[in-house]
């Protein structure tokens, strides 16, 4: 038997030892890596499988494309390419010359690699990438640094979408592709290939990934941009590496940031944390515009929202400024078109702003006027005989039948409190107008299933984050040919004139002429309102200012390739 006193001493020493070990290491051995907190862990480093933003956060430092965007002007600029390629309308082709660049294993990045990447995507029809390569008829290697792309037809998205595709090493992937071809399901085999040590061409390479704990990228000594001046910036990277740490909750990540465990939290900080963070002198907050659309969509395939007058009335009743002020606490921008205002080149102010600048009573009157004109009636109208706004009861459709109850599907509050609350408040505005609306929060996966697969819904509130600056997605989201199960036209919008302009815009290679067409598309959509764009939230990111500086602000925030190439340690 061990005496009690000895037991107590042993346990006390053991416990204190543990404390000392942890605290001591944490304090004394701070590596000179930029520590970035992610909300969740990346799922894979296989670029052909990755579908979560956490995987892309890491992969975007390892693999690079031929062109990228200037952080200030947002114009396309050459990246792995030496110059921006010029379109040859006679041969429907682009010729790209590569910079002197090397893979992380020291071998040169060649035109063969570029052609291999494109052909791999086309051969395996890789889901996330195929749609932006399927119009490329041939990829011809002219010499080690020159590659020519021949298109089947003119496609305006070639530069902005096709050439931004990350290029992979032929040396690394050729054998994988070979094995995949022999498998029963080649695409699955390719996507399930486990990447242990990716050969990249970006500023960082994978050093180690301790799953569940951290992922470390270290400086790529072969990065083509090192010391080059691109878009007015002399590129690094100037840090030894980037260490990603994973937090399951924002609460823990914010505490880690305040404590100094991480230097940056790569996730938009919610309003509730801002007050506390603003008071902390060691933390800097960055506010940037986003290329995102938060919107209310309708099912145009069935009543009541197959009536444009009703959609226009709903748009008039929704007070976007109120949502931004009260729910987003001012950190957002109202949307008057489907293109976010941050996309300065393609955003066009529509002819009608549906209720902008009106008081609640004025909104009610305007919506009432519109619906009366369209033949709607009420048991108790929202505007009384004296012209005063009152709480309405039982709206009736033009045929005289009462409007049936309808549901506004939203993601649940734990997934996105802003959208859930927006749904509730819109429900109240519509109810006060006599419409039997109910906001229904629903698990995100189920919501998508309901809207995209089952197509059994009335209205929904969803969002598109990180919309491409080339708004070809407008065509994708509203073209009638995409109104099918799992199609991108979720509302079931059909407008032959819109389809015609959309098709024309896709094939218009002249930027200014294309802008005009895209403006026309925006104006049609804002009149027909298959979606009511609500707001674009600001991207608010928090970093510590005592270890690193040099963050680059651009659309979508500071978590961009420029920041990671330019951030420098602060010398004590």
């Amino acid at each position: 038997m061990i005496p009690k006193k000895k037991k107590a001493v042993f346990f006390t020493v053991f416990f204190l030892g543990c404390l000392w070990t942890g605290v001591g290491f944490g304090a004394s051995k701070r590596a000179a890596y930029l520590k970035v907190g992610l909300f969740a862990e990346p799922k894979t480093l296989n670029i052909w499988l990755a579908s979560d933003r956490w995987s892309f956060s890491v992969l975007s430092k390892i693999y690079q494309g031929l062109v990228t965007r200037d952080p200030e002007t947002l114009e396309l600029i050459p990246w792995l390419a030496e110059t921006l390629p010029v379109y040859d309308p006679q041969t429907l082709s682009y010729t790209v010359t590569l910079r002197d660049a090397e893979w992380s294993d020291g071998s040169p990045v060649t035109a063969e690699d570029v052609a291999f990447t494109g052909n791999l995507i086309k051969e395996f029809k890789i889901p996330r990438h195929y749609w932006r390569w399927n119009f490329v008829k041939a990829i011809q290697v002219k010499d080690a640094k020159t590659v020519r792309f021949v298109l089947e037809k003119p496609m305006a998205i070639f530069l902005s979408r096709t050439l931004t595709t990350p290029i992979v090493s032929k040396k690394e992937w050729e054998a994988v592709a070979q094995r995949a071809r022999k498998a029963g399901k080649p695409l699955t085999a390719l996507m399930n290939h486990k990447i242990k040590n990716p050969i990249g061409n970006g500023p960082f390479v994978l050093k180690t990934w301790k799953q569940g704990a951290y992922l470390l990228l270290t400086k790529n000594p072969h990065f083509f941009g090192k010391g080059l001046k691109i878009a007015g910036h002399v590129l690094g990277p100037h840090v030894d590496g980037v260490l990603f740490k994973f937090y399951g909750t924002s609460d823990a990540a914010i505490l880690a940031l305040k404590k100094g465990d991480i230097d940056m939290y790569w996730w938009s900080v919610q309003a509730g944390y801002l007050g506390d963070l603003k008071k902390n002198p060691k933390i800097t907050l960055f506010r940037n515009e986003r290329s995102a659309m938060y919107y209310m969509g309708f099912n145009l395939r069935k009543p009541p929202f197959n009536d444009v007058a009703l959609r226009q009335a709903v748009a008039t009743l929704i007070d976007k400024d109120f949502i931004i002020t009260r729910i987003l606490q001012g950190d957002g921008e109202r949307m008057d078109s489907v293109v976010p205002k941050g996309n300065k080149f393609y955003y066009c102010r529509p002819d009608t702003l549906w209720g902008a600048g009106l008081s609640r009573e004025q909104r009610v009157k305007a919506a009432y006027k519109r619906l009366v004109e369209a033949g709607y009636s009420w048991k108790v109208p929202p505007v009384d005989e004296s012209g005063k706004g009152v709480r309405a009861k039982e709206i009736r459709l033009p045929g005289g039948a009462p409007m049936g109850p309808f549901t506004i599907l939203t993601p649940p509050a734990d997934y996105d409190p802003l959208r859930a609350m927006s749904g509730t408040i819109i429900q109240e505005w519509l109810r006060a107008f006599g419409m039997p609306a109910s906001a229904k929060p629903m698990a995100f996966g189920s919501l998508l299933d309901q809207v995209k697969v089952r197509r059994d819904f009335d209205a929904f509130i969803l969002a598109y984050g990180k919309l491409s600056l080339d708004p070809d997605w407008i065509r994708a989201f509203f073209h009638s040919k995409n109104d099918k199960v799992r199609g991108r036209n979720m509302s079931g919008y059909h407008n032959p004139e819109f389809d015609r302009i959309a098709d024309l815009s896709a094939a218009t290679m002249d930027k200014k002429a294309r802008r005009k067409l895209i403006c026309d598309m925006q104006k049609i959509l804002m009149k027909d309102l298959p979606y009511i764009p609500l707001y674009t939230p600001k991207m608010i990111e928090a970093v510590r200012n005592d270890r690193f500086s040099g963050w680059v602000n651009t659309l979508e925030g500071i978590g961009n390739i420029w920041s990671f190439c330019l951030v420098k340690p602060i010398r004590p």
Partner: protein
Amino acid sequence: MELWRYLWRRFIQIGITFFVILTILFVLFRIAPGDPVTRMIGPEMTTEDAVRLISQLGLDRPLWIQYLYYVRNFFTGNFGYSFHYGQPVIEIIWDRLPNTVLLFTSSVILSAVVGVFLGKIAAWRKGKRSDTLMTLGALVTHTVFLPWMALILIWIFAYRFGWFPINGMISEEIWLDPSAGLWIKALDVFHHMVLPLLTLFLIYFGSYLLIMRSAMLETLKEDYILTARAKGLKEKVIRNHHAAPNAALPVVTSVGLSLAFSINGGALTETVFSWPGIGRELVFSVSNNDYPLAQAAFLLISAVVLVSNLVVDLLYAYLDPRIRY
């Protein structure tokens, strides 16, 4: 002989139950709302992309054929590949399982040991201030919302005092340091374990305390306790050697099942502390309709629970001579 017959019968029951669970899991995931592909594809991808992906994942086949493949794969030990990780499901589970077992088994054992000990004392001192305090404390900690408790502990001990890490299971400073030995790494894991373990302990020890107290109070009314007292045995001997072992029987069942269920991890605990265990993967796989991963994880839990039930039953018979199979 009787025992062997009993065991044989139980194994058959377990086999049938497991097969039913296997089938129910398949059906449940297929009828549950949500679509595995919708979450995997971007908004700009075409319907054809989605259809291709569905075909590659084998989800375009009739359900009964999918079911036959599922059963065949199960019996050949092939649980498939995770839709999102692109890794064999079995690899993911084996990678996460030890982390969950380490944290939750430790917490169940610690909670049970302390809960039984304090429950014994509380019952012995029934009606006194110490009993009231312990019972009240157990009720309070047992009913507190776990994430709230976890965040409070993190805020106090990790953020304010800086004694423990905020989350995770290891420190990169130590694990990236080639000079750090096994002992240091083990201590590092223990250091990270303290707060989640404390949270789970505070939440769960109360239930064991209350079960033990209640069972002990019943036991103390038994004739053999009166006999022991009449024989002039010391109070401590009566409490620890006569009353407590008999009162501990219900706790054995509870601990046995808790140990079994502990392999599903606590999704909330693992999320708040970023503990890389099965619980987080379960939540992820279910919410993203990652059928192979979710099915395999639930099957593992079912298997462990079924076997644990058998073990608890056998243990009960061993501890209580009145029970014979």
